[in-house]
């Protein structure tokens, strides 16, 4: 049952992605992108990644939709019709796709418990994190303790991006006040 739902939702996502790519109205594109993120959150839940699912639902579907709508309010809602089909882009995309599909052929199948990804450090996290960290949620233990420096780096990235946005938009806003 889980597998059928997983396949169906992934097919939905592909259809939605094609629709988003073809649409000219950017307002609709922003809303569809929110639906796309929610669908991906459902797939994450099916794949047992509950923490990722609620972060995607809050950040991907919530915050990024708000940011996109804010940008549309400050700029324009209509995309102009593209003049010609871009054959070079299509060629590059097909070549990339061929390489990626070739790369998946010898990957472990869905749900394989003996895949290399499960045989290294993950086992230690699962067996020891309960007594070492004392938090029932293993993802939280790894995020905040074992890989705490990653999270620190992530915070630095957010901080830098925040400063960047303030510098870019703050200047524009001050100019707007003067004129």
């Amino acid at each position, binding site marked *: 049952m889980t597998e059928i739902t997983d396949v169906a939702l992934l097919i939905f996502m592909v259809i939605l992605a094609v629709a988003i790519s073809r649409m000219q109205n*950017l307002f609709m594109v922003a809303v569809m992108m929110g639906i796309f993120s929610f669908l991906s959150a459902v797939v994450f839940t099916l794949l047992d990644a509950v923490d990722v699912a609620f972060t995607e639902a809050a950040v991907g579907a919530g915050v990024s939709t708000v940011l996109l709508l804010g940008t549309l309010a400050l700029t324009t809602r209509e995309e102009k019709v593209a003049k010609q089909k*871009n054959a070079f882009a299509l060629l590059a995309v097909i070549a990339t796709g061929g390489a*990626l599909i070739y790369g998946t052929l010898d990957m472990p199948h869905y749900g394989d418990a003996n895949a290399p990804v499960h045989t290294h450090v*993950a086992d230690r996290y699962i067996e020891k994190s309960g007594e070492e960290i004392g938090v029932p949620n293993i993802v939280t233990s790894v995020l905040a303790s074992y890989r705490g420096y990653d999270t620190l780096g992530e915070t630095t990235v957010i901080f830098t991006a925040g400063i960047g946005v303030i510098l870019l938009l703050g200047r524009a806003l001050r100019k707007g006040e003067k004129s």
Partner: protein
Amino acid sequence: MTVGLFNYWACVVLMLIGLYTAIARPNLIKKLIGLGMFQVAVFLLYISMGKVSGGTPPILHTSGEAYSNPLPHVLILTAIVVGIATLSLGLALVVRIWEAYQTLEEDEIVERDHD
């Protein structure tokens, strides 16, 4: 029903749609949206690899069932938040470009630069 490699192929297709949108569409907001789709495809790829058949979410319990791999979840949590940071910075640049050029189409911006 066995899913086999279907998840990876769906991820590849989503990636390609995102990549095509980012390369071929001249509109800057559309390019960022293509980038966003590409990111979601990468997230799905990682999370698909972490799934164990019959596993449970990686929260400690005593019923003896296997856990799915928590490590990809942690990496992707970080990636989602970094993704929103790049998106916000990109959109701020888009707003500045709109103020300077009054257009978001790449070809028109290049034309105006050559005038």
